[in-house]
């Protein structure tokens, strides 16, 4: 059972990292607009293709 003293802190740290990442994403407005960025992917692809054609 002594292994718990190693495993428990690891669990808590992992959970802490996940919550931290969530807070970070939230502060960076990642959840503000869930609709528009999905479409923006389509535009980028085309622009890159154009650049390739030009080069």
């Amino acid at each position, binding site marked *: *059972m002594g292994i*718990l003293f190693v495993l*428990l802190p690891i*669990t*808590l740290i992992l*959970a802490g990292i*996940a*919550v931290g990442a*969530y*807070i970070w994403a*939230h502060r960076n407005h990642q*959840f*503000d*607009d*869930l*609709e*528009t960025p999905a*479409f*923006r992917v*389509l*535009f980028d692809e*085309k622009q890159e293709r154009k650049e390739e054609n030009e080069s």
Partner: protein
Amino acid sequence: MQQIEHKETVRASACRHCERELLPGQSEFCCAGCATVFRILKDRDLTDFYRIQQMTQGSAPDLRDRNTTDFSFLASNTYHEQYVSELANGLFKVTWYLRGLSCAACIWLIERFLDQRAGVRDHRVSLSAATVELTFDARFDAIGMAEELDQFGYRVSLNERPEEIDDDSDDLLRLGISGALAGNSMLMSLPFYVGLETPGYGALFGWITALLSLPVLFYAARPFFRRAWLLFSHRLLTLDLPIAVGLISGEILSLSQLMRGNLNGIYFDSLSMLVFFLLLGRYIQQQGVQKSLLHTRQLVAAMPQMVKRADGDGWKAVTAQELKPGDRIRIVGGGLVPVDGRLESREAILNLHVVSGESVPVLRQTEELLPAGAINLGAAFVMKVNTTFCDSDQERLRGLAQTLKNRVCQENESPMAARFTAVVTIAALSALVFHWRSNPELAWQSALTILIVACPCALALTRPTAMSFALAQAARSGIWIRSLDALDEAARIRSVIFDKTGVLTSGCPKIVREHWQTPHQHWLKGAILCLEDGLNHPVAHAFRESFHTTPALTATEVRVQPGYGVSGIVEGRRIVIAAPQGLPRFGIHSDHINAQLKRQNLSSDSTHVLVVVDERLAAAFELRDRLLDDAAATISKLRADGHALRVISGDRPAHVVATCSALKLNDVQGGVIPTEKLRLMIEAVAEDRHVMMVGDGLNDMGAMACASLSVTHTGATEAALQFADIVIPQGGLLNVATLMDLAKRTKRAGRNGMLASVTYNLAAISLAWFGLIGPLWAALLMPLSSLSVIAIAAATVKGST
């Protein structure tokens, strides 16, 4: 080019820009606007627009029949003070609303425009909010940008800064954190559930869950404490109160048990889960409301009007708010009269539709009063301002409406919640007292179990889930509901009062009968259209809509006599289009024409327009403000549902009666002035508390504010849009009936869910009271009941549709 050819093969008879069906005689484009836009996109190598549009199945904005907008407000001081915020190092920031922004291709195009503009430093286009957030420097030309976007069908408009609705971003954070901590906390509590006996380790797990519960309690659950306290201090019992009491006493009890080493009495995981579920319910509800709010924001966003005020020798553009009594202002054709005043020019032809509900254009002579809200249908005129903007009738009505509205909108928490709170508190207290003598531990435990198991979770979730399902369903048919109370009220409505012009009818007259006196119909149609080309008069619109040909001829010496008609020469022939009483104005005095007219047998309740070619009557048209296509269906549906129906209109009584008899409506009043309308509405509400008013003009606003529920459509006056409870799509009157059905189903869903929840609560509380179940069971039962309530609500709202 490749994509465009592909597009053509898809639909040959569609406009190459907007893909709308082409009318006979049109090739490639449906209107001049589309042709211009297509050419510009091609010149600038932006034809990818069509590719993206096709890929995402979007649609380009409708460019037909648009009025041009005056964007000079974007250069005024008022704009910079009220809408623009200054950032550091010479940068500015502003949020524009964009009407017409509807698809991914629109975003792509707008972003390309913004990239090419000088002075734009950063931009963020949001599809869901239909806004663009601009960061710009001093080089930025706002008017030029707005005009460019307008040309492509994206109309820039403004609204107050959308800060007040940002509140929910914190909710998402709270929700996420409580979810993560509750999950971990459950994991750590697993040893208790499976019966961990080793004392040292048990305490370790206990302390970890206690640690995890702290952020949940102190951060995530804060809104509940705040609201419970706020409402408690106002002596109101709400569902937040037992939640707050349960959370605090649960935490304290668990802590004391943990310190005493009693591991069976700690419930940190249940408490965290409770908070998570409650936040989830709140979040779901808010998402629904917010979507609705967002849309109404887009609807009421507008471009404040600039007026030309006499300034020395010339005219200077100012905002309507800056006008003072005595100012002379010039109103261009198609312009809106911003404040009350008197006419200085010889005459003006006005559309008073939004002011009084009259459907026929009205002629005003020098020195006559011009009400704010009137639209200039003729040539530009000069008027003298009588009042300030805030004192004009339009603003007064709006202010009155707002006050009335505020009075009606009071906190309306259901009495069910208060009763429930009282019952739970009494049950918990009595259990505590009853068991105290025999077994203090059991006393605490059963009291806590009652607080947890009777968690109003299910009760609190019923309404939000049913409501958000309903809001989503309403939004799909284009109905926007301002508040949840409005949806509640829609289920209670017993009588409906309609405005006529613009609500039951389209608001613009249409040609109902044509009497041709000439064999050259096709030529004459073309001639009429080229004479009326570019005129912003209801009759001109009626001709354009009725004749599906493009004007190929050219007219010379075109003369418009506001209020009477238009004349001109086409291919050597003099053509006059006028009302019968307007003919003498064009020098036509022919008894012959009058005699011809008599034979035509024109009906007396329609407006007549004559076309005279070289002094001879060539055609006569009867125009009438036509009923909407679904007006009859709506009326009969509402009647079948047992609603009392009534029409109160400001239009001439003869017109109102003629229109409404077609709908078999008997309770009809015409020629009603706005204050009288308000009085009639107050009477109606006093008689029967649940009256719905469907209106769209300024003259309806008083009545709409008094009604227990006000409905308007997307084409209504901005003022009406700003405070109507419910907005339906223009021309979709049947949505009124749909809405009431939906509201009734929602109410039923709420009731079913409530019933299930009450049954569950009664059973669980009695079990807990006798100490038959412990907090562990309570924690397990609670989410189960919540889930079943959500399922019941969803199934009932979906109903038969």
